[in-house]
Each structure stands twice: as structure tokens, then as C-alpha cells.
């Protein structure tokens, strides 16, 4: 639910990183925070457990400058990926404008990626939103693990399993090294802003 403030000429947009547990959602945000530290005035907010897992969400506000004379403030959130935290995931999705689905490319994660994507569809539906109509980008993360000999799903397989029906933009990435992290963020901002523009017409 983007908010347009006509007085301050400001738009606030909410983008949520979704995906299975330990998939790299928080790592994406940490990389963005590190990279744009000079432009982000506040600390990144994280609510995590003692075991360093996301408990509620991470939050990173981010000014991207002006679009058509409006200051655009992007609010990046992650959800907790663990299955048991479904209620908190649903809360974080409230009012979402755009979603990055961070899939874990390890072969063993095949099932969990699919379940998480279905869970996203279900939770969006609870806000009467369709996954097919919400701005969405897929990120196939952990591609760097191939160098360590860890079996990964091929991009073709990931596309078939996750993007067969959705047909949204996708990128391979390595959040830990920063490969394609910023590009993914740019993709989702672009698609979300285009969709908002369409709505505001």
C-alpha cells in the first residue's frame, strides 16, 4: 500500500524479500546496507533470535531520489523464512507493493523453495492480492556454492519449478558476494514504480 504524500511530494513504497529459511534474504539487505551506507541515514533494524535467525523482520529505509518531482522512499523488509513463523510473515506482507522472492539454488532446497512460494501466494491472498498481479522478481541465490562442489539446481530447473506460470523477471545471484544483489533491487524498484504509476493514472 504505497502512500503518496501530495504535501511533501513524497512516495513511500514497501518492498519485501520473501523466501525459504536461510535463503539469503537478510544477506541481501546487509549487502545493500553496506554498499549504500553513505546514502542511508539510519541503522538497519533487525529483530533476530539468539541463533542469528530472523525472528520478525529486517528493515532498511532507502531514499532513491526523485521520480517526476516526487521524493521516493523505498522501505526494504525481509520476512522470517522458517515455516513456523507464518503469522509474522503475514504481518510483514501487509501493505506490500513489490516482492523479491529469494530462492535457494541448492538442490536439497528444491521442495522448500516451492513450498515457500506457495506460502507467499496464500499469504497474499489473505490480503486479497494475487501473486500474478503483484510486482515480483525471482532471485536464484547461492550460485557461488558451485565452486565448492555443492550440488545446485540448474537455472532451467529453477525457472521450470518456480517461474513456469509466473513468468516474472529472474536473476542468478550470490548475496554473500554481492553478485546481482543491487541489480535485483533495481529490477523490483523499476517494476514496482511502473505498476504504481499505472495505478495512479
Amino acid at each position, binding site marked *: 500500500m504505497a502512500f503518496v504524500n501530495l504535501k511533501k511530494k513524497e512516495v513511500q513504497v514497501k518492498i519485501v524479500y520473501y523466501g525459504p529459511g536461510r535463503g539469503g534474504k537478510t544477506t541481501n539487505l546487509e549487502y545493500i546496507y553496506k554498499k549504500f551506507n553513505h546514502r542511508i541515514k539510519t541503522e538497519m533494524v533487525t529483530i533476530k533470535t539468539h541463533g542469528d535467525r530472523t525472528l520478525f523482520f529486517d528493515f532498511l529505509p532507502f531514499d532513491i531520489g526523485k521520480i517526476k518531482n516526487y521524493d521516493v522512499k523505498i522501505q526494504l523488509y525481509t520476512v522470517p523464512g522458517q515455516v513456523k513463523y507464518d503469522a509474522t510473515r503475514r*504481518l510483514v506482507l501487509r*501493505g506490500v507493493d513489490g516482492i523479491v522472492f529469494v530462492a535457494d539454488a541448492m538442490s536439497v532446497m528444491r521442495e522448500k523453495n516451492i513450498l515457500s512460494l506457495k506460502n507467499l501466494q496464500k499469504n497474499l491472498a489473505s490480503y486479497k492480492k494475487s501473486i500474478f498481479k503483484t510486482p515480483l522478481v525471482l532471485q536464484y541465490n547461492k550460485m557461488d556454492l558451485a565452486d565448492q562442489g555443492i550440488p545446485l539446481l540448474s537455472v532451467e530447473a529453477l525457472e521450470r519449478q518456480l517461474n513456469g506460470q509466473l513468468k516474472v523477471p529472474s536473476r542468478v545471484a550470490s548475496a554473500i558476494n554481492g553478485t546481482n544483489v543491487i541489480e535485483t533491487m533495481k529490477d523490483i524498484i523499476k517494476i514496482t514504480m511502473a505498476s504504481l504509476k499505472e495505478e495512479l493514472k
Partner: protein
Amino acid sequence: MTYTLGQEQLDTIEEILEKDIFDLGVHCVFLIDMAGNIIADRDNGRVKHDIYSLAALAAGNFGAVSSMAKIIGEEEFSLLFHKGEKESIHFSKVLDDFLLVIIFGGATSLGFLRLKAEEAITKIKKVLQE
């Protein structure tokens, strides 16, 4: 889904926050939506709180408490208040989608603040429903 508030509506909301709440001597007051966006804010210039993070956390916190209420069979908890040593936070729901957050110190009485917040909320509801 997008929603827009115009200059006039925002001016009226800011005036309500100023006269009904801020003049009680609170440190900071802001109206946010449940997605964590800030609609209007006013502070005394001395507090340097990061209100964008506060707004995100307040919306999440309020959502979590509302879910807890439902689990135990309550529609909602009418009072949500965190007491600190120097500063405290008071939350009140405005319609289904908005939240009024007030940060105040020991010099402000909670009872009076609640009373004034109720008055302000009635007025803000009218503006938001226009």
C-alpha cells in the same frame, strides 16, 4: 494498492496533532499506516528519534499484539502502552488501517493523554474518511 492524501487533508491532520496532542507537552507524535508508512509527524526538535524505523516497528508490533488478542478470543486490546524510565510510547488504532503513536515523558499524565488522544482520533477519522 496505492492511496493518496492531499495537501488539505494533511494540513488538517497536522493541525489536529499539533493542537490536541503536541501541545500537551509530548516529545513526538506521528500518524502511520499499518504498512509502516509515515503520514504526518511532529516533534519538539530536541528528540532525534529515527521515526522511519519506529514506524516500521510500531506497525509490526501493533499487528503482533492484535494477532495475540485474536488467539485468546479478544477483538483487540484497547490500550497499548510501553513505559520507559524517561520516555514512554502510547499507540492507538485509527480506523482499521492507521495508528497514532505518541512518545512522551514523565511530565505528561497518561490519563489525560488518553483522553486527548481519543478526541484527536475522532477528528482524524473524519479527515481520513473524506
